[in-house]
């Protein structure tokens, strides 16, 4: 168990698309192997008004990559004098990860975003060396990702409205983490729409 670095701290995140809205959710557990240390460790970070990234894997890398990405996005916004778009953020992140191709960060990532003018939605995921994916409907990373994928495929419908999207995302996450000992202890869900972002905290099984 000690040599599976991706399962050392645990944690999971899921992202789903709706009609002109996207949702991203993560659990709140921070543990060291089978010991739970904290229940307020969220893995989602905001990089712009409509761009969110979730990092799952080794906790120290979650924090470091989040901070290093912030360094680069801050400079981008200062130099370009405009906010980041989701696909640009995604490319910056995968570039950052590939720079460490032969000594990688132990995290898998999810990037979501929305274009407030057109309502176009973006959901991307990446492995720990920056492999890019297409703009998908559903993506999951973390120790419980296999379980959540199954539930997500079941609950996903195309063109959901924000409330349906919230329900689908939350149920996939909460029921998926119940099958995984390294995830859980509550969840946070962000639903991003054209005019607002809603954050909700969920209380699931506290184990």
């Amino acid at each position: 168990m000690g040599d599976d670095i991706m399962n050392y701290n645990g944690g999971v995140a899921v992202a789903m698309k709706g009609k002109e809205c996207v949702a991203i959710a993560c659990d709140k557990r921070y543990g060291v192997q089978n010991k739970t240390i904290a229940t307020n460790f969220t893995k989602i970070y905001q990089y712009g008004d409509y761009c969110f990234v979730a990092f799952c894997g080794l906790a120290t890398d979650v924090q470091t990559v989040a901070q290093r990405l912030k360094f680069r996005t801050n400079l981008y916004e200062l130099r370009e004098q405009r906010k980041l778009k989701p696909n640009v953020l995604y490319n910056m992140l995968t570039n950052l990860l590939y720079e460490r191709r032969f000594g990688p960060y132990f995290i898998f990532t999810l990037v979501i975003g929305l274009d407030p003018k057109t309502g176009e939605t973006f959901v991307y995921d990446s492995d720990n060396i920056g492999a890019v994916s297409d703009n998908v409907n559903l993506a999951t990373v973390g120790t419980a990702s296999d379980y959540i994928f199954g539930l997500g495929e079941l609950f996903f419908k195309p063109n959901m409205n924000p409330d349906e999207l919230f329900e689908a995302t939350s149920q996939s996450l909460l029921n998926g983490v119940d099958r995984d000992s390294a995830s859980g202890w509550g969840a946070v869900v962000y639903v991003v729409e054209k005019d607002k972002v809603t954050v909700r905290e969920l209380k699931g099984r506290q184990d």
Partner: protein
Amino acid sequence: MARRYDTRATIFSPEGRILAENGVVLAGEKRNVSPLLDDVKYSEKIYKIHDDLCCSVSGITSDANVLINELRMIGQRYLLTYQEPAPIEYIVSRLCNIKQAYTQFGGKRPFGVSFLYMGWDKHYGYQLYQSDPSGNFGGWKATCVGHNSQTAISILKQEYKIGETQLNDALRLAIRVFSKTLDTTKLTPEKIEIAVLQHDDKTNQTTIRMLKDEELTTLIKQYEEEQSKLEADRQKQQQTTEKDKK
């Protein structure tokens, strides 16, 4: 520690900066050298370094761009290491060390740029710094750099009230200094740009904003009204003294 010495005015395009009790005001002259020059969407004088610090430039623009980039990198490196915004003096000091190195080592020429920095941090509140090509810098309550800066500084010395200047006083003072030092006869919103930095203690957010043309027009009109009133009073005074003489 702010290093101080007798600073001479450097002959670049002018700007002044004033520290107020609840903010910092920066005013700069816009030089539209040719009507054929393409419009820029952003300011060509005032640059944001990080959320709580911005600076304005006097001198060679290409040199300035290199240094602005370096200032931003210094700010971000501090933020990455310590996860809190860099103090203003730290950033100014680091950049000035770089500027100084170019005056002593390598056979390279110094950067032909003077900066005026305005910012807020949690250690010393609102601050105003000036740096020049030698790498020397100082902290100021009100200062001016560029063309006619001696005139401007003497006006500031008389009019700026330490410990009492509020933001709108500082804005009025800036307009006043400009109307006395600019080459042109009449002050219009196209010729100047003013930025204001304010920190909201409740939300812990700093806003840096450029004054819009309407606000500039209002300020200029207020100043002109004050001036015409003073002129009218003076004329009345003169008439009464002449009458007394008779």
